[in-house]
């Protein structure tokens, strides 16, 4: 280490401290009363030396960003092994999720599987049942795509009411990465699909196996056998060395540590597509095979974990929108609980089945707001309200809650998860 100065201590975030706050910001354009010592006094970083290039072979975020981390909610599950944590979407911008804070969902924990120990089997209704090594997979022609992976249960705790107070917790079972891998179609062609084959059953190398059935049509369309994400190898907790990427479909089907693909005539109806990932309606019947994640959006800031601290004036309202049916076409934002809407600005051309970033720049007058966002996708589908969803499905669907979220922004800039009439 060659560090020769200590930076300022990480100031504890003044969380919900009421925004009036200290100094900067409030009086934009007004002449300062006294000179700013951060400018007039020579600071240590302007005088001494920083770290050498040998200090950090693989870097972590600077310590001032230590609150931008995955969080879990202990009471949600019986133990932390078969459990979930949440991406800090309230603190991120753009669309690519940093892998190190991208959410995890395991059923038997995050296993460690070396490339040398990795095997992928294709069996069932194929001409040639095959075994691939990791090295074999890297020799097939590759593709690269950006897709969102959203847990089927994202926002699931909010069915019965407003419950968890923060976008990380209500909408953070999601990540969006640039994947490199081999189309599943290429591997299936290598084995030769027999005409009776109508489904593929995919499972992982972990104890839970997480087996799911996928119709052959989807398997041949755009499913990817991925080994890189955001430019580097998959993280252990995201399926190293190989996972399935199933664009637009519920995250449970994105089988990690993928070890076997079986071509079958029928769905296996495994535990993860009968007991779980089925959606119970008000009359007690349940939907199965609800694969696609419908159009959805959320304002990530301001939000309960990202309050307004700068007082009235220019305010950036920003958030994410996505759809499993294709591209986001438009996002509308309301600041009055849905009475009036204005079209937000998309930061870039939305990708297919990928997160889109939207902005609405307003001049906040300091009064209360009921912030909402409403996504539309290229099929013309408009993100519904929770009331609309409940009218069709009741309260016990558990999964696939893509309702419009409301944040109540108070005059002091704090925000709260609420439901509105």
């Amino acid at each position, binding site marked *: 280490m060659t560090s020769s100065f200590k930076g300022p201590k990480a100031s504890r975030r003044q969380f919900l401290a009421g925004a009036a706050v200290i100094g900067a910001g409030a009086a934009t354009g007004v002449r300062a009363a006294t000179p700013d010592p951060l400018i007039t006094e020579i600071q240590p970083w302007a005088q001494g030396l920083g770290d050498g290039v040998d200090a950090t072979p693989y870097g972590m975020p600077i310590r001032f960003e230590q609150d931008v981390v995955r969080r879990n909610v202990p*009471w*949600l599950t019986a133990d932390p092994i078969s459990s*979930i944590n949440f991406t800090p979407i309230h603190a991120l911008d753009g669309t690519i999720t940093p892998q190190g804070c991208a959410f995890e969902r395991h*059923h*038997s924990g995050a296993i460690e599987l070396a490339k040398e120990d990795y095997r992928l089997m294709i069996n069932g209704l194929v001409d*040639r049942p095959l075994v691939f090594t990791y090295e074999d997979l890297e020799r*097939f022609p590759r593709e690269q795509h950006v897709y969102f992976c959203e847990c089927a249960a994202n926002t699931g705790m909010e069915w019965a009411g407003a419950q968890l107070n923060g976008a990380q917790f209500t909408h953070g079972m999601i990540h969006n990465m640039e994947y490199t891998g081999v189309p599943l179609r290429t591997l299936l062609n290598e084995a*030769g699909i027999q005409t009776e084959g109508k489904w593929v059953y995919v499972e992982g190398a972990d104890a839970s196996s997480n087996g799911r059935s996928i119709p052959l049509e989807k398997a041949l369309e755009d499913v990817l056998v991925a080994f890189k994400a955001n430019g580097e190898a998959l993280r252990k907790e995201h399926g190293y060395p190989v996972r399935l990427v199933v664009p637009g479909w519920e995250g449970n089907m994105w089988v990690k540590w993928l070890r076997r693909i079986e071509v079958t005539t029928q769905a296996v109806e495994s535990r993860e597509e009968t007991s779980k990932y089925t959606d119970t309606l008000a009359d007690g019947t349940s939907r199965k095979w609800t694969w696609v994640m419908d159009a959805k959006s959320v304002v990530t800031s301001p939000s309960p974990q990202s309050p307004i601290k700068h007082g009235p004036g220019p305010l950036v309202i920003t958030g994410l929108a996505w759809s499993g049916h294709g591209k986001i076409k438009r996002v509308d934002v309301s600041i009055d609980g849905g*009475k009036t809407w204005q079209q937000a600005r998309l930061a870039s051309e939305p990708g297919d089945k990928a997160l889109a970033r939207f902005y609405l720049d307003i001049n906040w007058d300091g009064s209360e707001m009921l912030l909402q966002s409403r996504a539309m996708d290229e099929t013309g589908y408009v993100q519904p309200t929770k009331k609309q969803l409940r009218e069709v499905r009741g309260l016990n669907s558990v999964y696939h809650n893509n309702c419009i979220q409301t944040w109540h922004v108070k005059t002091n800039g704090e925000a709260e998860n609420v439901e509105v*009439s």
Partner: protein
Amino acid sequence: AKADAPFGLGREALPEEIAAWNLDVSPDGTGLPVGSGDVMTGEEVFADNCAVCHGDFAEGRDNWPKLAGGDGTLADDDPLKTVGSYWPHLSTTWDYVNRSMPFGNAQSLTADEVYAIVAYILYSNYLVEDDFVLSNENFTEIVLPNAEGFIIDDRAETEYAIWSGEPCMENCKESVEITRRATNLDVTPGVDTAEEQAATAPAAEAPAAEEAAAPAAEPA
């Protein structure tokens, strides 16, 4: 007609390899190995391997999954979904227990032990008598109560049409009232620092937790 493999990568899987990994069992019984087990044997195996989490009668301990009970509750405010009340196929029970249970020591049970455990779970759900013997031969005769309880995703018919088209932009409603607040429940972990999170995280038995919609992630 076996066309050539386009890239010639990989190698043929051997029968022993396929047998080791191809364990899934389908609703029509495809994949079931030869074997059998009775309720009384199942009770013993269950007591040794399962009851510590799932209870002596498969009724569930603490926050661990309940495997029995809840029949007739699916349309209730708080449905109890178990093998007896919810699961459509017995094949899934056999397959899942065989491959993924006990939690932390999966794939440690013999086929006969799995048959016995599944027989005991049926008994715990009052679906068979205490002298019942389950085997690969009578397996598909068992029809679970909720076998007809599932429909294939019908969102395209019931939702997409009504939620498409140009939405309202102005004067969309007369008034807006706040009807629910998350802070009334106060079950969100602290988000300031890791220490605070640990210090303020509600305990698993916090009353408010019971108001949660079924947890996002139920344990295996």
